[in-house]
């Protein structure tokens, strides 16, 4: 390997850009699944539902401690054993959904915990039910807290999805690497992949900042 070839980096980056839809699929679908399941788990833990709250605390803490790559391989072997010819995208989405569920449930829980208990009491004191208090008082305050962290979670998912090249999913990383398989310019291919990820994540960060601004305005209106 003798240095890097700029022209080849461009070629590899183009191949990577063509695979952005797969990476987005691997990030956004698990994000949505994680948001739904994670919110339910967070609610169960916030309202201390008997037995379930303790159970989910153990489940979330355990899953949080296992590296994603191990979750991937354990699910990979379990799933390929149970279903022959399973599509690797399904394995990837399942793994990342587990990951998303863990991080998003913690985000939602953190956002709700950041709201002072006075706020609930204030709601109850004027005769609101729990649902009304949540909808009118707590959620409007928790959302602006959660949004920036959720955007970070999404960025984390985009980055985490890169390990799916190990199970031959053709995402950004795999897309760029394939171009290097004939000339062994792997350094260039990895640099190209880094540039594509970097650009994609900068765009997500920009969108998140715009969203935060709008949230800020929304919050001002409430106050």
């Amino acid at each position, binding site marked *: 390997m003798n*240095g890097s070839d700029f022209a080849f980096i461009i070629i590899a980056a183009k191949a990577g850009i063509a695979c952005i839809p797969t990476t987005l699929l691997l990030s956004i679908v698990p994000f949505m699944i994680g948001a739904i399941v994670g919110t339910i788990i967070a609610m169960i833990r916030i309202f201390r539902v008997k037995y379930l709250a303790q159970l989910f605390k153990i489940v979330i803490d355990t899953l949080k*401690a296992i*590296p994603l790559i191990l979750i991937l391989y354990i699910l990979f*072997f*379990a799933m390929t054993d149970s279903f022959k010819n399973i599509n690797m995208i399904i394995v990837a989405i399942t793994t990342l959904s587990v990951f998303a569920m863990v991080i998003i449930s913690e985000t939602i829980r953190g956002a709700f915990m950041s709201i002072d208990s006075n706020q609930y009491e204030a709601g109850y004191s004027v005769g609101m039910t729990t649902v009304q208090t949540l909808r009118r008082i707590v959620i409007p305050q928790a959302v602006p807290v959660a949004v920036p962290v959720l955007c970070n979670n999404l960025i984390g998912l985009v*980055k985490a999805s890169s390990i799916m090249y190990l199970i031959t999913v053709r995402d950004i990383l795999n897309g760029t690497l394939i171009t290097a398989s004939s000339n062994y310019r792997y350094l260039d291919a990895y640099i190209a992949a880094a540039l594509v990820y970097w650009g994609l*994540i900068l765009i997500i960060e920009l969108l998140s900042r715009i969203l935060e601004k709008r949230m800020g305005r929304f919050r001002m209106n409430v106050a």
Partner: protein
Amino acid sequence: MSTYFNIKLVFEYFPQILSKLPVTLAIVVFATIAGVILGTLIALIRINKIPVLQQFAVVFVSFMRGTPIIVQLFIVFFGLPVLLSKAGIDANNWSTIIFVIVTYGLNLSAFMSEIFRSAIVGVDTGQKEAAYSVGMTNWQAFKRIIAPQALLIAMPSFSVNIIGLLQNTSLGFTIGLVDVIGEVRAIGVRTYHVLEGYVAAAIIFIVLSILLNKLFSYTENKLQTKLTRISR
């Protein structure tokens, strides 16, 4: 591949997999040291707005935060020997653990610099002014007044990142590192039983995370009581 899961094998492989734990721990320790030193440096560059270096730091931190660590790992693995050969150093035969430590040290430094920066900025300016008002120099004010408070602010994010680092070490096998995961794969090649090894590795990581969490919350409590005692 394994067509069934044999729980007995989890225990059988466990000691062998555990014997590679020092590799994982060495990466965590050395990368943390490198990350803290470099991270502090970057934070100071950005707080004091040193020209040129500051712009460089901003791009570096953005790159490290904006790209997957596995891509960074391979860029260091393939790129560092190329870079060093220009300086006349032959790095082709270096042990893979060095590349892993370099990558994770660099990666961690970016995250650490952000944590330290927001922690130092997060200390009330009144504290600094109070230190100056009693005649402390810039350095004294930082060492005695700002740093201890900033440390307390930084602690929770610091621990989250170190535990993240511990988990990221699991990617080292992709460049041929024989750590806990690398050993599982070596066993898998010999015996065709790999799922059991991954489960054993998962148990090791769960226990390590619990221990690290305990250590951090202990340190945080210690720091908290020490600081409140001083302020009293």
